[in-house]
């Protein structure tokens, strides 16, 4: 099962490597990991997407909680939640037909063209991982020059929240 673990941790040097090290040392999967400081600069918020049986996920949350720098943690996929990922994708757009088609598909997916040259577009798209995958499929594979994805971040719906 896919789980989204959201955690608040002290914004200390090395905090990220403690989490990454834990996953590699204990053989847990990381599908993606995102991290950045919060509105309180002493705290970082991290979102880890991982897969495993219930037992493995239980161990992952316990082991993460055991890290001294971790302040709070929740498996937000337990309840209603929102999930978003950002993708920047550079595509070949060197003919009028290709430029029109690419722009059309981008509009359908609610993406934005951020940069235009004679030869290329850079497109920005946010959404769930599935939506980003679908967008990539909708493009001509030969036209894709590079893609950059942020990995998923997420937040619980309603009143549920992580506080220090």
């Amino acid at each position, binding site marked *: 099962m896919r789980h989204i673990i959201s955690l608040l*941790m*002290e914004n200390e*040097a*090395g905090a990220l*490597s*403690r989490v990454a*090290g834990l996953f590699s*040392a204990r053989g847990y999967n990381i599908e993606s990991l995102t991290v950045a400081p919060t509105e309180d600069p002493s705290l970082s918020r991290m979102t880890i997407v991982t897969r495993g049986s219930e*037992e493995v996920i*239980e*161990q992952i949350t*316990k*082991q993460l*909680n*055991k890290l*001294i*720098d*971790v*302040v709070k943690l929740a498996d937000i996929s337990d309840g209603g939640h929102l999930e978003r990922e950002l993708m920047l994708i550079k595509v070949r757009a060197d003919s009028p037909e290709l430029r029109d088609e690419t722009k059309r598909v981008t509009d359908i997916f609610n993406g934005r063209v951020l940069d235009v040259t004679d030869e290329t577009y850079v497109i920005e798209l946010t959404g769930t991982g599935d939506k980003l995958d679908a967008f990539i499929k909708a493009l001509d594979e030969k036209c894709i020059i590079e893609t950059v994805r942020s990995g998923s971040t997420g937040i619980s719906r309603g009143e549920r929240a992580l506080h*220090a």
Partner: protein
Amino acid sequence: MKLSGAEIVVQFLQDEGVEYIFGYPGGAVLHIYDAIFRQDNVRHILVRHEQGAVHAADGYARATGKPGVALVTSGPGATNAVTGIATAFMDSIPMVVLTGQVATPFIGSDAFQEVDAVGITRPCVKHNFLVKNLDDLIPTLKKAFYIATTGRPGPVVVDVPKDITDPNIKISYEYPETIEMRSYQPTVKGHSGQINRAVDLILSAKRPMIYSGGGVVLGDASDELIAFTRALGYPITNTLMGLGAYPATDPQFVGMLGMHGTYEANMGMHESDVLIAIGARFDDRVTGDVKKFCPDARIIHIDIDPSSISKNVRVDVPIVGDIKHVLGDMNKVIKAHKNKPDAAALKQWWSRIDTWRDKDCLRYDRNSALIKPQYVIEQLYQATSGDAYITSDVGQHQMFAAQFYKFDKPRRWINSGGLGTMGFGLPAALGVQLAHKDATVACVTGEASIQMCIQELSTAMQYMLPIKVINLNNRYMGMVRQWQEMFYESRYSHSYLDALPDFMKLAESYGHVGMRIENPKDVEAAMKEAFAMKDRLVFLDFITDQTENVYPMIAAGKGHHEMHERELA
């Protein structure tokens, strides 16, 4: 009071109540060593290798319950300390290790004697710190001791760059009595609902077994465990790390369990209907094949570390909390409970256990012309009236000591259970003897293990530590040889130790007393003679039977009911 970083380190240790620092100087810690030189309150013990410093601090911590402190320099000082740190981590020993680091402007430049000590130690510490600003030094030291000694204890490394200890830069110092950490608040009290559920289950048992581990020793909960076990009248087994938490000479004690545990302990586990696990972590050497583990038992697990619960074996009633508190609460609930243990069922259960006991699974050939290692441990037990602190290395001798020395008190059995570190015993004994100056301290070892940290004989001489080294010398890495005999058709690949030193002369060259004992009939007298020398380290080199194996044994992948037993003519 204005102090330099180096002076702060030493003053802080003094204010924290630290008696001893075990260490070895080097470039990055010279400012700290200068501050140590200029005071008399914290005593520095100079070891001969940084691994020895950490093991000695570890032995001190295990024997006292107080945090051990080690100080090493940067680079190789830190890397040499890693084995000691990992040893303490696996056995949850409270310890603070100060590592020197190159000055902050040089960090990352591959400077002389630079390693990323925080990076290297990260997987084998409870937590670690790099002190980047002098202002952070005092709170970091306080956090280090707080983290090391609370919750599930463990080693904490504080990496201190040389410029942080600069004698010319001073800040005001005040000892912080307490520290608050929003990200670290260990649970102490057990959940009362869970405690009630557990007691209901405990009192409904027909074939109960108490399985207690090192957590009882670490949590100083031996008294509570004894009260709990006696009130119930249930059989109790201890893990290797838990020995001494319940008196081994008590009739309710069925011996150690696990790979080299007793028949009665392992069979009792296998047939139990309620298993009460207390401060134990279901280690693979204890459980054998988890699929065959306690097939009929409902399991209660008390532990301070939530991540230990249901890690290897699914449990039915988990209780997270400090063992001393939880057992104290449980004892009250049991006393007030409307139900009592099922006396009839218990009588039947004990008679079943007694039939297992009658097998006398630890029996060995007492008429051998060669010295049997078991006999040496029995004689050690006699010579010390069962009241010594026993450290050990790792291998057959460790198992013989665990099986044959009947520990009646906690903190008396000091060994590397989790990591299994050869070379632990002698330096650990230094720490134990320093902690308990008048106590009898013996290091049970073998000719392979002892050579991994033998340089510490020199430290023992310098500080006049009258340890007794019991060397079970069978000219083999005994446990490796045993596995090769059993599982590799006696192909003894590199387990034979050729070109051994003359240990008697070696001990003498360090200034100690050396003895070699080759005949079983001389063992008793040698022990008496050695232990009568109260102020000398005596190295007793017992030339033992090379073919002796540790029994009973559960081979890897087998269940508790599938033990190998010794076959005697």
